[in-house]
């Protein structure tokens, strides 16, 4: 492949990755920011979203586009409710103690993963793409004047573009909710100082349950969006969790803006490096970047230093 089209393909790949990563990592970051809980089970909520999408579409058995639209709503809501229930029954009882909640979410990770294995099974199951238009992309070259041509393999699909657009829309929506609504205000107040927020009459416990549910719902949404491209498998949460942690650490735990910037940075660089060199090298570099950030700027690129 020539350099130009090759780069463009890499950027498209990276953009898709960045979009999904941003959704997932923002959920992780939100939970940590507000609740100070490091949710190790976050990847499993992503997996549950994908498995849920398979469940909803095959249960309804209607046209791919309607089934998928239903999955897009039902799966994240169910996963969100499940997570809120976990918050009330488990995390609350541990008084949100940082160390104990890590252990508890590790336990949750295994419970969810094994429960999925025992019910859904060990197979990877596909969900049909709601629409599957292959879009060939042109490239320009200089041959007796400017000419358009259609290189082999330079393509994207309508669905991929939809995933990117949907992720952007959801994240913009999340930003608006955080900034301009009463709910967002309550979350930000709880994030700033839970005790004082409680003193001012904010139902902190309910905010916690909601935030944990919302975080899980975002991961599940990412899972629903990705499943027509990659299939639902009970082990898919592991890699996704690792990448989200990388993004959140680089962006700054609890900083939503930083998370987004880091997701785009990691997603795009992973896309480009893995296309031009090797996917393994992309992972090595991302992990190396985490190490450097932890050494030289432990609060992350955009995080505020602990008070």
């Amino acid at each position: 492949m020539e350099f130009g089209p090759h780069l463009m393909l890499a950027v498209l790949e990276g953009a898709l990755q960045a979009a999904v990563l941003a959704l997932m990592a923002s959920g992780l970051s939100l939970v940590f920011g507000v609740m100070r809980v490091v949710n190790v089970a976050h990847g499993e909520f992503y997996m549950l979203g994908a498995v849920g999408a398979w469940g909803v579409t095959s249960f309804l058995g209607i046209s791919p586009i309607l089934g998928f639209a239903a999955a897009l709503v039902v799966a994240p809501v169910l996963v969100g409710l499940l997570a809120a229930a976990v918050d009330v029954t488990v995390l609350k009882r541990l008084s949100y103690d940082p160390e104990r909640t890590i252990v508890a979410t590790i336990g949750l990770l295994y419970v969810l993963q094994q429960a999925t294995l025992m019910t859904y099974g060990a197979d990877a199951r596909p969900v049909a793409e709601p629409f599957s238009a292959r879009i060939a992309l042109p490239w320009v070259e200089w041959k007796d004047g400017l000419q358009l041509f259609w290189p082999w393999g330079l393509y994207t699909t309508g669905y991929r573009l939809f995933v990117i657009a949907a992720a952007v829309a959801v994240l913009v929506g999340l930003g608006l909710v955080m900034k301009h609504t009463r709910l967002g205000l309550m979350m930000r107040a709880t994030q700033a100082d839970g005790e004082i927020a409680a003193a001012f009459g904010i139902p902190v416990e309910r905010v916690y349950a909601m935030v944990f549910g919302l975080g899980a719902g975002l991961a599940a949404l990412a899972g629903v969006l990705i499943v027509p491209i990659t299939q639902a498998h009970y082990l898919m949460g592991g890699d996704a969790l690792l990448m989200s942690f990388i993004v959140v650490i680089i962006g700054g735990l609890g900083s939503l803006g930083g998370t987004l910037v880091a997701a785009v940075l990691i997603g795009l660089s992973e896309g480009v490096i893995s296309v031009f060199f090797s996917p393994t090298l992309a992972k090595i570099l991302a992990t190396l970047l985490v190490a450097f950030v932890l050494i030289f700027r432990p609060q992350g690129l955009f995080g505020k230093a602990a008070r």
Partner: protein
Amino acid sequence: MPKTPILRPEDTIHSPSRRAALRTLGAGGAAAATLPLWARYAGAQSAAPIRLGFEMHATGIGAAYGRWYERTSIAAVKAINAAGGINGREVVMVTEDDGTDPKRAAEVVEKFATQHKVDLAFGTLFSNVVMAAAPRAGELKMPYFVVSEGHHVASGKLNRWTVQPGITDVKSQVLAMAPFVAGNLGKKVTMIYPDYAFGYDHRDNFPPAMKAHGGEVIAQIAIPPTETSFTKYFAKIPRETEVIYHVLVGPAVLTFVKEMGEFFGPSRPEIFGFIDSIEAVDLNSPGLEFLEGTYFWEGNPRYAQKDQTAFDKAYRKAVGVDDNGASVADPKDVSTYAHMFGCWETLYIIKQGMEAAGYKDAGDRQKLIEAVEEIGKIPASDQHPQGDKVFNGKTHQVFGHQYVSKVAKGRLDVVHTSTIEDGMYPDEVDYTTQSF
């Protein structure tokens, strides 16, 4: 339920009149089925069942294969028992999940030997798992019948206790396929294969075979087995490629093939794949339409062919597979048809070996391996429905026919069957010279 005569085992074993009576009963299969289990095998020296450890990829990336390897093995054991077991003794299968995980596999082998006290272990598929577990089986001096396709057995990397009598190895498959690819599809080939032992068998053996037939491998692309997104790899395919040679395994195979179709769009090169890339995947899944007119290697044809043998018909029925290679119970549950016959045939080799060795207990394990080494020619039969084969006792590897199928109207039609000799190569090891 009809009342069955109350017989104690010692009566049946030592009293000829009882035994004769039992034999008469045994002639009527229906009558035998109502007897208690021990009585059915009462003609044997010992009434204790023969215990075979089935190492199953129940979870992890090999789960689809594991599910079908298990169904095939259960069907074979059932058929063997219905015909009187091995040496007149009942066969019992003890299943353990290895998670398709090399580390766990070595533990499973150990558990078989020390805890379940099985006579032997069989059924491992993934080559990285075999590589990890076989040395432990060797140390425990437990026969290890793998059904893996890996060249690791015949390459001499393993030990005298490990044999592969039920399925051919990748080197043999690749040698048999190269003339077809070079002769019919094109000379410039780009290979895509998994980045571990099984893929390396393809990587190392196909280019020289292609060269011998005037072709050339112009690029080799290795994909990690846990990868979930593939476009980035396809971008490395050189423009002048005439033939794509692909082989992949794991849960993401459907995504792999689908993205390959999206990548090429309307202008694809010739495509030759190993069926592994769509094993357990419905050929008519959305997004796979572009496979029409492409070719696949098959170890055993998934779709019942026009010239289907009676052996294949009986085998399909026993395992519960329909003419499209899917489960009779659920047409969406597509089998790993090109590989799983290996379990069926391996179990019959075990039976043949044990009977030739007069196998009694774990003390006869060495005799069993020696008997299997002697097997040689294997005719096609109900026991060997994939076709006739030759077992090489020195390299512990079986050789057989390979099939090339073309995708036409959403099914796979066999267009070429290789001879056994096409897949032969000089011995690389003589295990019979190694001590037990």
